């Protein structure tokens, strides 16, 4: 994973806006690329995007808060996503979530204080054949039983 760009550096976000500004409906793409580079979308970045596009900050904020994949606060270095699609749920995703939270001392949506972990319940990732499933960043772990969880967390 590439190093994240510090929020103070506004050149990158300005370049992203410049690249897309002529495309109709570009705001979503700009927010997606900005989050990819900076890791999250604090108000400073949203404000810069609004200024560069010449639109009110409320409009940018409205879009950034509408979609669940846009984060307004930083996420952990390792993002655990426990799939809460129906197939995973009926095969016991809830106990998996409880187990992860009991090991890390978190609630769903939390980032640990050391910034290492964040825990989210995700929408169906479509790996229903492997249910229940969790992901750590890009790694997928399937056919989980409760005893697997500690070992997975230890790996990172």
């Amino acid at each position, binding site marked *: 994973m590439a190093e994240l760009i510090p929020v103070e550096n506004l050149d990158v976000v300005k370049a992203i806006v410049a690249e897309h500004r002529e495309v*109709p*409906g*570009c*705001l*979503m*793409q700009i*927010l*997606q690329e900005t989050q990819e580079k900076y890791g999250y979308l604090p108000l400073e970045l949203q404000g810069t995007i609004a200024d560069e596009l010449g639109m009110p900050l409320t409009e940018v904020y*409205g*879009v950034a808060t*509408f*979609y*669940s*994949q*846009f984060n307004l606060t930083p996420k952990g270095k390792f993002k655990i996503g426990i799939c*809460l*699609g*129906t*197939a995973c*749920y*009926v*095969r016991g995703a809830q*106990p998996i979530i*409880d187990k992860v939270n*009991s090991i890390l001392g978190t609630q769903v949506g939390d980032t640990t204080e050391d910034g290492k972990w964040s825990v989210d319940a*995700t*929408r*169906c*990732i*479509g*790996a*229903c*054949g*492997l*249910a229940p*499933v969790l992901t750590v960043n890009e790694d*997928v772990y*399937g056919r989980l039983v*409760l005893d697997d969880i500690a070992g997975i967390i230890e790996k990172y």
Partner: protein
Amino acid sequence: MAYKRSQILICGGTGCCSSGAMTLVKELKKELVKHDILDEVEVVATGCFGLCELGPVVIVYPEGTFYSRVEAADITELVEEHLVKGRPLDRLIYTEKGDGHHPLSINDLGFFKTQKRIALVNCGVIDPENIDEYIAFDGYMALEKVLLTMTPIDVINEVKASGLRGRGGGGFPTGLKWQFAHDAVSEDGVKYVACNADEGDPGAFMDRSVLEGDPHALIEAMAIAGFAVGAAKGYVYVRAEYPIAVNRLQIAIDQAKEYGLLGENIFDTDFAFDLEIRLGAGAFVCGEETALMNSIEGKRGEPRPRPPFPANKGLFGKPTVLNNVETYANIPAIILKGAEWFASVGTEKSKGTKVFALGGKINNTGLLEIPMGTTLREIVYDIGGGIPNGKAFKAAQTGGPSGGCIPASLLDTPIDYDNLIAIGSMMGSGGLIVMDEDNCMVDVARFFLDFTQDESCGKCPPCRIGTKRMLEILERICDGKGVKGDIERLEELAVGIKASALCGLGQTAPNPVLSTIRYFRDEYEAHINDKKCPAGVCKHLLDFTIDPETCKGCGICAKKCPADAITGEKKKPYTIDTAKCIKCNACIEACPFGSISKA
């Protein structure tokens, strides 16, 4: 091209990739080099075969030998036995659950026997990253036929005559939709074709499988739609959760442009068509057509009131035709083989096939395509291989958060759009989740309401407030605080929300509740009146106890208990302090004697 004596197909769908398929590709090539047969044997990473449960799946042709759950460590032996010595490696050949059938060829598998593949015809057969393979399987011939021999009205009439209905949920006749967009007047002549690949229904992944396994089929179909309605630009709106699909679709678009199958003067006609991918950002409501259009426009994905309908005033205010991936995937076959052929498959009002993503408590989890009219029993038992661990079938859930639960008494219902509506569910995009006796139907209803409530965009009050009130009632029922009259209150709210919500999300949100009340009312009553959860799911209604007769006093449960709720002396029966017990199930799973129960 050099002659290849054998092809090895490895499933490269998301499911099998998650189980390590790409490592297998590397290992295979390494072994083939070692035996110096790399130029005789071709290794192809294909799209999804459908049997995700058994992944990673490897098929060796010409025999069609079906190997399941192959690991990197198996590859040396597999290459040595099958490709060098020429005898199949028996220990990796799948043995079917139930009858112990041990088929040598993929064509003999029970899972595939009753399927009929139209939309998925190339999935698991071709290399999705190679346009030549698609072309070799008659790819882009339908587009050529349309551009060189048909008028837009011919195309629309053909699609109408096929009886194809939208595979994304509502089942609206596709040809009629195209007709409306064709007839709509655009002041500056601009119209759009859009594809809904925002497959948000939990448990449905057929659209992703088409994108991953046969992306050119979508491109070809959208170009055909563009010709039919008079559009030169198309958008594919894909979930960002599907990185492999997005990547393969982009590769396919680039290849199509390189071959002149997208762009200006396609097949030397004056027809021009271009495609662009737009990524979603995690909002279920964007599967609704007008919300999706707002999202492509870079706005909050809130639905718009209709009329005007998208066919007249859609994307960027222009006439737009929107279909989902599976609907489009049927189009090339309809054009090439004819409407009559397509309409010969299926039931009177639902033509063709439907792809289902079979998941949950079922032996053969995966993707299957069956003629409309196949019964649920055939899907669950013949194709799905029945319920694991000898448990009893309780319900099948179709239509995702918009659908309902179908009980065992209706297993013989032929599946089509109208029958599903009649029994209180709907086709939806084709997720089919099987539940067994261990699933609580009240909890399932709560799960779906929790989902729709969370995904409600908040624009209209019936959905924003109504689903919240329904969820609160369901939560208190699951927590053992349900009161008399709660079932009736749920029903009353449901009727109101269905009648007054702005978009499909709200209008269908009460379905999971209504259908579970309709078929499993006794479970609701047990929760409310007796404060019991018959399936043993709702934690607040359970007490864990150790049977002193069978407990051997080994202490394993006490060690496993994360809440220190279990105490006792070695070799004497242990006891659970119910006040401390967090009902996590760890003790039940740990007990070697089955002495712990919950009720």
